């Protein structure tokens, strides 16, 4: 029930996003066909590009066409390769999903563990070390980190391949690199909210039962503080997702992010539109999942939902 309602509230956002992405071509200052054709193009050439982009149709027809392109391969083709955009995207999607979800998952796990360590022994050596690492993780340009990893692990040690996406080994470095930012952020969030819940009476109730400190923290404190951490992190997952755009370029992985970068540098407008739409869609989905997760973790919001 909640899922449906939450989906319902995501729809207007998705609609607005699709409209924005659709109007993208019209936002370009000047005539996009003229830009694509180049300064020396003849009028016929420009006219054929206008036709290809469908710029002569009325706005509403074009929007319908644009939406159809989401599932109909013939409705939208890349300006540069003349292949259906849907095909271009779906070929590359698995790589992007592996890299970004893998990185995100690894980052959350590492960050949570680091946050727990910080909160259990505040002021200790481990806390200090993790705090420094966290700051470094947030400040590190991940493209530079990627280059350093290639140089060290691929060139120097020769353990892992430097670029490409043909074997599972190719994904190790990109996932590690993408994981740094979520790990740094999550360790901060978890540490802060754990420390906040550390003073709660229910932890003492649990201790008085004779439970071990580990169980008290993992079973009682962590679950409560994760609620806070997850709801804050939900907003930031998008930024973490964006990390895949740069990382794919660094590691030469044929993914949606790299496709987008190439499309931007070659002004391949249809590809840009659908790639952006896809990223936005993912982001909305991630927010939805975050909300559901909070819901599942916190019985109090579950009941509020039932009564309202």
């Amino acid at each position, binding site marked *: 029930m909640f899922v449906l309602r939450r989906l319902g509230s995501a729809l207007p956002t998705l609609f607005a996003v699709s409209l924005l992405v659709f109007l993208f071509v019209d936002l370009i200052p000047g005539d996009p066909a003229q830009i694509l054709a180049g300064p020396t193009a003849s009028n016929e050439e420009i006219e054929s590009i206008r036709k290809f982009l469908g710029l002569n149709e009325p706005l509403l027809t074009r929007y319908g066409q644009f939406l159809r392109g989401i599932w109909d391969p013939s409705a939208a083709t890349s300006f540069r390769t003349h292949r259906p955009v849907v095909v271009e995207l779906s070929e590359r999607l698995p790589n992007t999903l592996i890299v970004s979800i893998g990185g995100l998952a690894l980052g959350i796990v590492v960050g949570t563990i680091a946050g727990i360590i910080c909160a259990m022994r505040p002021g200790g050596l481990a806390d200090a070390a993790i705090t420094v690492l966290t700051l470094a993780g947030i400040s590190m*340009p991940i493209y*530079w980190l990627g280059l350093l990893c290639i140089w060290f692990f691929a060139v120097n040690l020769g353990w892992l391949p430097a670029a490409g996406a043909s074997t599972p080994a190719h994904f190790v470095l990109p996932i590690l690199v993408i994981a740094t930012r979520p790990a740094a952020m999550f360790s901060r969030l978890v540490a802060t909210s754990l420390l906040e819940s550390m003073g709660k009476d229910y932890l003492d*109730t649990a201790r*008085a*039962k004779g439970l071990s400190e580990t169980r008290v923290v993992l079973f009682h404190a962590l679950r409560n503080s994760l609620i806070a951490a997850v709801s804050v992190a939900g907003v930031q997952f998008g930024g973490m997702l964006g990390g895949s755009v740069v990382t794919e370029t660094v590691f030469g992985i044929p993914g949606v992010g790299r496709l987008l*970068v190439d499309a931007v*540098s070659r002004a391949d407008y249809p590809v840009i539109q659908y790639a952006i739409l896809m990223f936005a869609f993912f982001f909305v989905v991630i927010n939805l999942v975050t909300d559901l997760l909070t819901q599942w973790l916190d019985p109090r919001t579950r*009941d509020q939902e039932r009564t309202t």
Partner: protein
Amino acid sequence: MSIMPNVLSAPERTARPDEFARQSRWVLLRRILSQPKGVVGLTLVTLYLLLAIFGPVLAPQDAFRQNFAQTLRPPSAAHWFGTDQLGRDVFSRILVGARATLGIGVGGVAVAFLVGVPLGVLAAWRRGWIEAAVMRAIDVMLSFPDIVFALAVVAILGANTQNVIIAVGIVSIPVFARTARAVTLSILAEPYIEGSIALGANPVRVILRHVLPNISGTLLTLSTLLFASTLLSASGLGFLGLGTQAPFPEWGTMLGESRSYIRSHPYLATFPGLFLAVSALAFNLLGDALRTIYDPTSRRVARRAPLLGFLRRRAPADPAPQTADEATGLAVSVRGLRIAYRTSEGLLEVVRGVDLTIRPGRTLAVVGESGSGKSTLLRAVGTLVNPQEVAITAGEISIGGETALGLAPAALRDLRRRKIGIVFQDAANALNPVLTIGNQLAEAVTAGSRLDPATVRQRCIGLLRDVNIADPERRLDMYPHQFSGGMKQRIVIAIALAQDPEVLLADEPTSALDVTIQQQILVLLAEIQKKRGMAILLVTHDLNLVARFADDVAVMYAGRLVESGDVATVLERPLHPYTQALRASAPGGSEGRGRHLRTIAGEPPLIGRLPSGCAFRPRCQRSANRAECAASEPNVRAVAGRDVACAFAEEAMR
């Protein structure tokens, strides 16, 4: 790639009146420099700004001159950072590039600030449809990952330095708008602002005079942190070849160019990357330092245990010989207990030498004002003080004949499980909100033993029956928030009883409940005590409750027990002036209904700033500046059937 960790997480942050606005810039500087990260951050940021201003002048060589005889040279005396693929001096390019790189960051933050802050303030001020529209737009903008959004802007406008500034600026607008709105809303809700609006003050003046100065701290913090992320985003675009175009040097673009040579000439990527990373680190450090100043909720460092604390913890106070023979037969025995809080100024003693005993089946009530140390005492007896915050500096505690201090974790758990049950003041906080009560009960039942699920369930149901909860089978699957306050307290008691403890510790167990429920809970405790024969340590400030439910009473003042003994003896005829004052201030005492209640003159003493001699001296009528009272703290002695710590206790008997 936004990195707005906690600035966003606390939109409901309470605004403080002009506290910070009035402070001069020097105070701010001093507060930044009082933190190590502030010193490092500010120093680095200053260096970077100097680099951006003077970099092009300082560059030893022409950053644009190509030299194909000297391409891709490693660092040397002539070229400190080596040369690039076109033979240009990398060191000079980095110095020249500082201006473009940092300039993009400044420009981006400025764009975001100038658009976002007015939008946010406007939304908070006008509310209504403007706010709805702004928030909706922010939602939509935030549903693009920001590097993707920036890419889209660059795709529309074309790739050059100016458009990168616009792109990264637009991306950060929502962050500014949201924060500005949240903070403005909380400031507008302040009574003094509401007042001046009600008096018809000019809205623009109100915003300029009250709102902007108050949100400036938060916005400064946000700008600094955003600068770091903007820098990284902008350079990311440069790295992708979509930022500053060749031949102009920008650190991200330089990194992008070095990518092709990472195998053969790795040092080419080293220097631009290092400069970028350190600049982001510098602004993050400074931002963190600012956040510590402007957002008190983020100051978690204050709790830190002293560096040598673990040494103290490891040597448990006074490893005195076990006095088990003495303690045999007693449910609780506390001897010479001293407890201190660890603070930044050293140890602060809150319990200063307490002796008490409770026999099985008896109830001892500890009464006193808030801050007298009674709750700390209870937690110490329950072995639940946090060693990082609290140190037990002397004395001993035994529960059921076993020492409770200096135990190994496993032994401590065992002791807690078998002998101690605890009930807190606020049952709502004592139950974990995200677990079913069946779950929480089962945990108490199964701790330290292996039982099959059916037995556990039966035991849980039995426990709920014991505390008079109807329909226990159904209740097991419910969550704490689905129960009333009185029911929650019953559940907490059920959890405490799960392992048949020898002592039940109750910290103001009824003060959060209304009067009729109070009565029920106390009757329940008394019944259970009769059935199980356990000892109860009750901490309260309610003398009526003591008179009705306790067997013994101990009056606590400033960390010491000033009078203790049988309830009838002590309350009938208190000998210590503080006990007398307490009884006179309690409503519905045995003597004289309709008499005026007296308040206790003076203030409770501040811990750590106790007067010399008797701690009660400044508030005591009996003392009247007698030299004995000021000379030394009176010893506890037996007078007329109770223990009392007053040099002139006998005077009360006349």
